């Protein structure tokens, strides 16, 4: 009797999940390496210092202008937050209408897709022209750029509900509102938060771009000023701030998602098992 060929239990050996420490250490090492290389490139004169500040200089600028940067950040953050909130509210209303009325969905779905291809940078100067140098054009630009990802993610989330669940609820005499509340809204939660995460970064960037094109305060205004005085170290400092703000907002969305979707953790755990 020929011995059965030894065979691995489940195809190729499964890669072991990286440990938590490795997951933190590896990207950290990459960042440090890049910073060292950057510092070296400038210190060794490969790129002249007046074109590219060193990381050390950027950190120094960050410390020096901390108070100023904080006040400008606050302005930008406020515009982004108000715009994002309005964008979410508007997107929600639109998505609900698209879900409720088939005609509305058919009418606006292609428009949504098309409008997403319009670069916000192209509308920003017009908004400043129409709405002036105050906070309004900034907020409007943020609304415009966050509204679509929210609407699209919510609308497709509502449609992702299992029609059998809707049938089942109908046999339980559920009202339209109850079907929405108990089935559709939770079904859309996952996609909604993905959309919100994207929108959060759009919100900061949108506000900065609008400020760039005209205004009295905000990170975009700060950036145009330091650019005109050739303080590239401060330019980099504001770039770092923008990144940090975006990351912070994304983290906030993540925390919000965790609070709103307690069942996600259970699902993740049972998937890993």
């Amino acid at each position, binding site marked *: 009797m020929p011995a059965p060929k030894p065979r691995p239990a489940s195809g190729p050996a499964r890669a072991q999940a990286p440990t938590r420490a490795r997951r933190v250490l590896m990207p950290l090492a990459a960042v440090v390496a890049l910073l060292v290389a950057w510092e070296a490139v400038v210190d060794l004169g490969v790129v002249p210092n007046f074109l590219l500040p060193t990381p050390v200089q950027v950190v120094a600028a960050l410390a020096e202008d901390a108070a100023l940067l904080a006040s400008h950040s606050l302005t930008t953050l406020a515009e982004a937050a108000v715009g994002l909130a309005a964008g979410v509210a508007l997107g929600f209303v639109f998505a609900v209408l698209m879900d409720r009325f088939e005609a509305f969905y058919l009418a606006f779905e292609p428009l949504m897709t098309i409008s997403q291809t319009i670069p916000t940078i192209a509308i920003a100067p017009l908004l400043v022209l129409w709405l002036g140098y105050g906070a309004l054009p900034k907020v409007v630009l943020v609304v415009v750029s966050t509204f679509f990802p929210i609407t699209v993610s919510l609308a497709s989330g509502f449609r992702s509900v299992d029609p*059998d669940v809707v049938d089942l*609820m*109908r046999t339980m005499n559920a009202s339209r509102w109850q079907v929405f509340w108990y*089935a559709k809204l*939770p079904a859309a939660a996952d996609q909604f938060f993905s959309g919100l995460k994207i929108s959060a970064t759009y919100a900061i960037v949108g506000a900065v771009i609008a400020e760039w094109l005209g205004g009295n305060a905000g990170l975009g205004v700060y950036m145009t000023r330091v650019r005109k005085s050739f303080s590239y170290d401060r330019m980099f400092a504001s770039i770092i701030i923008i990144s940090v703000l975006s990351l912070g907002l994304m983290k906030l969305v993540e925390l919000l998602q965790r609070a709103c979707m307690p069942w996600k953790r259970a699902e993740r755990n*049972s998937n890993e098992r």
Partner: protein
Amino acid sequence: MGAGEKNGPPVAAGAQATPALAAEGLTLSWDGEHVIVRDVDVTVAPGEVCCLVGRSGCGKTTILHALAGLTTPVAGHVLLHGEDVTGRPGRVSYMLQKDLLLPSRRIIDNVCLPLVLAGMRGADAREKAAPLFERFGLAGCELKWPSELSGGMRQRAAFLRTYLMGADVTLLDEPFSALDALTRTDVRRWFVGVAAELGLSALVITHDVDEAVSMASRIYVLAGAPAAGEPSHVAGIVPVNRVASESFELTDEYLAAKRQVMALLG
């Protein structure tokens, strides 16, 4: 040992007592032109579990939708304890192969859904459902999320939810055929016991002959090929002699019924 009393009530198929559920001359169509099911008569006596068996694509689910009131038949009526409920949803309980538990609600809240939808306060609904967890083999699962339960447990939770819909007639569409073989046998046997204990009238719709014979006291066999322009009809009714046995699935009575059903299916 509850000897053989699960022959159901001595059925002369709803001749004298008003049947719990009756379909009379049900003719169904998707689009009003192509008839899928023609002249189907089905009766389920109070406290009886019946099965409707047919091949895939013969219009079983269409019949289920009509019985649940989700669609209106071209002709015929659906009677619930003699009352005409044709095209009116919300009068019978309804359970599918998919458990359709809402992932966003804990088991107890899933199970309570029909009560809450009917306007009961959450706390009251939980109070009403909690004592039933033991009987449905779900003790300790109240606060778990659906994703934390096995397939068999989820199906039991779905059945508890169906039970709490409060209608005494239950429609089941291939309720346990998605489970693995061993779990399936256990859950079916458990279902038959619970249904008898609670006095449920149930119609199980399935393509699985074993599922039908192991659960029902009478089997309606549906034959036809709607896709080929040949509407389905009831080809015969097979009574099942449900002898009490530890392994009913191995008895001659079981095999005899299975053979008859398969002959009728063609």
